[in-house]
């Protein structure tokens, strides 16, 4: 049986709005690609560069951190704190000559599944661009 690997995206989604939106999307049977895989974390602020690099190391093509809307973090400002780290790590990836489109941060709203699905579609679109520009980490 011939097999080939496909795109592979790891999304860290916070236990509040992130998981909420993904669950709402599920309840509404919104469809998205199977390459999207979700890891539940307590807050976007918990996801550090270590976790993001771990995901790349283990085979992720693209990583996203998804938290609550700004000003609406359930742990106060975890999403904002996370954003700066993501920006800094994006800069690192860019400086290494790879595409910064393989790392993203988004917000989601628990009551609106389409926010999560929209995020996923955006991630895949950006990943497609990154692959076209030969900017993904895997050769």
């Amino acid at each position, binding site marked *: 049986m011939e097999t080939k690997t496909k795109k*592979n995206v790891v999304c860290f989604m916070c236990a509040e709005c992130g998981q909420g939106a993904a*669950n709402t999307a*599920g309840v509404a049977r919104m*469809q*998205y690609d199977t390459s999207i*895989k979700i890891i539940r974390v307590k807050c976007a602020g918990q996801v550090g560069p270590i976790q993001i690099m771990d995901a790349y190391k283990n085979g992720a*093509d693209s990583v996203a951190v998804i938290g609550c809307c700004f000003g*609406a*973090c359930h*742990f106060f400002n975890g999403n904002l704190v996370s954003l700066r780290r993501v920006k800094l790590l994006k800069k690192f990836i860019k400086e290494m000559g790879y595409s910064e489109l393989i790392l993203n941060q988004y917000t989601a709203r628990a009551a609106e599944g389409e926010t999560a699905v929209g995020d996923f579609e955006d991630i895949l679109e950006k990943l497609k661009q990154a692959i076209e520009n030969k900017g993904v980490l895997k050769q």
Partner: protein
Amino acid sequence: MVEKEKDKKNNPKSNERIGVFVCHCGHNIADVVDVKAVAEYAKTLPNVEFSTDNMFMCSKQGIELIKNAVKEYNLTRTVVASCSKTQHGPTFARAISEVGLNKHLHQQVNIREHDSWVHQKDHVEATEKAKQLVKAGVNRARTLEEVRTQKIQITKAVLVIGGGIAGLRAARDTADSGIPVYLVERESSIGGHMTQLNKTFPTNECPQCSISPLTNAVATHENVTLFTNSIVSSVDGSIGNFTVTITTKPRYVKSNCTSCGECASVCPVELPAEWDSGMGIRKAIYKLYPQAIPSTFVVDRKNCIDCGRCVETCPVNAIDFSLKKSKTKIKVGSIIVATGYEEYDPSEIEAYHYKIPGYENIITQLQFERMMGPTSLTGGQLLRPSDGRIPKNVVIIQCVGSRNELVGNEYCTGVCCMFAIKNAGIIKDTYPDSNVYICYIDIRTPGLYYEEYYKACQKKGVLFIRGRPSEIEADPENDCLKVYVEDTFMAEPMELHADLVILSAAMVAPKGVGLLGSRLQLLRGKEGFIKEFHIKMDPTRSSRDGIFIAGAIQGPKDITQSVAQGSAAAVGAVSSLVKGYIEKEMIIAKIDYDLCTKCRACITACSPSAILWENGKPVVNEVGCKGCGICMPACPTHAIQVINYREEQLRDEIEAVAHPILEKGV
């Protein structure tokens, strides 16, 4: 099997016995995911001693299945692959706790919302993904730690900071529920800004009449201890048990004062009254306003000339200059912060010349309210401060200090439109000959009866000009002020001749809030107001457990909203106290001091301020910690870790999830 051996090598020490249960959820999962294949796959994973599938794991029969398997196979961890953690995670956790396992040793894997429901057309890939998620769940379960639930005894008492309308409402509602309340007010009397107002919109009611039943009730309530002339000088502890120090400035008048006022009548010192926003005069011995509660007089020692006439005059010998500053230590379970707002000082906007000599006829809305009040110097008449003449032309300027990036306040205060409409109407009612102009950017009147009130004001003949005045210039020749404004509807520059200008100054955070905020360790927004925990869902909770916020300290509000938030904060403060204890699952941060470099980054990062610097090292306050984990990436040496969200534990899960899944076989 090769994989199993490899993984075992990676986890040589684990002796855990894991049970995996894969749910069909009727058709919901099984129609898309091959649940039997997933359950079979789970058997190949290291440490998995038992694996099965079931139609409905959440049914009574499913729960029994888990319980029996735990007993029969001596399982130490359970993994259920079904719906979301929020939906049935607690159900399964309870099940294992009934057969003797700590409920945190259950790991929930979501293969419904995150898999079968969202990949309905792709059975093969959905099954592969489910296998991967189960593998991640098993990895995660392997290293789960027991988490204890701690019962924390709490103090049944509430501290309310601020005796304005929001604080009074909160104090009254808390006290009515039988819980002791300590109410701290910085001024010598309670009541706050509302007592300064002349009328309230949209009914033009007398505010004193509305508020005095509440002030009286609070002051005489058996459950309320009132601290006026006092501030909160230190706060220690965390939810359920705060130790608070209250510093009380001496009044120099004992409580046997009968409020007869003889002392004030003989006092030779005359000063502009702060409560009257400078529109009235008080003595060095005074009370804020006639209906002030407590009605005991207070001596302004800074301006007192020690003539001693009041001491001689007082019929009950209540005046005593030997009184000293006192400190009171109290214990409370919750704190409500309701310190209100301050009126923006428009002198920052140079073009308006507020408070500049020659521009005495520019006043703020609060000054207007005080001038129109029945007890004012003018006897409730609108008179120009410069010459005491009744003004013919009055210009009201909106958005002074709000919606203005130049002064740093981008927000809309929200109440000044109604404020201005009310006062314009009152001027027109009292002086029908006068011309009243309101220069505005947008008129905002959301809410029941507000738009109607606006319409009524327009009918009275108040003129609305859409434009923000660029400058106010004195015109000594015509003895008036020239207001330059562009009418943006007509695109026409205008020059209004005003006998009196009223500035609708913004509501801003009070000056002392920074200091208080640091004492309470609360986070504030860039505007200076104390930030709510969640803008929609938790507007009365602060960033710290056990501390609630009410009224304009959270952001500009009108009386209705402040009162409502006061009540809501009271419920929040009381609800955690009525039981007498709180139960907390100790999913909290732990510090490994061998790695810690004492850099304090975790203290900076911790938004609920649950990490303190004690004896030369950071210490996690176990009661205050919310386990959010923001401190984890902040730590440069991974010394601080949240239980069950430790770096290694997350890594186990990431390892399984980050592998690509196989595409359909060709």
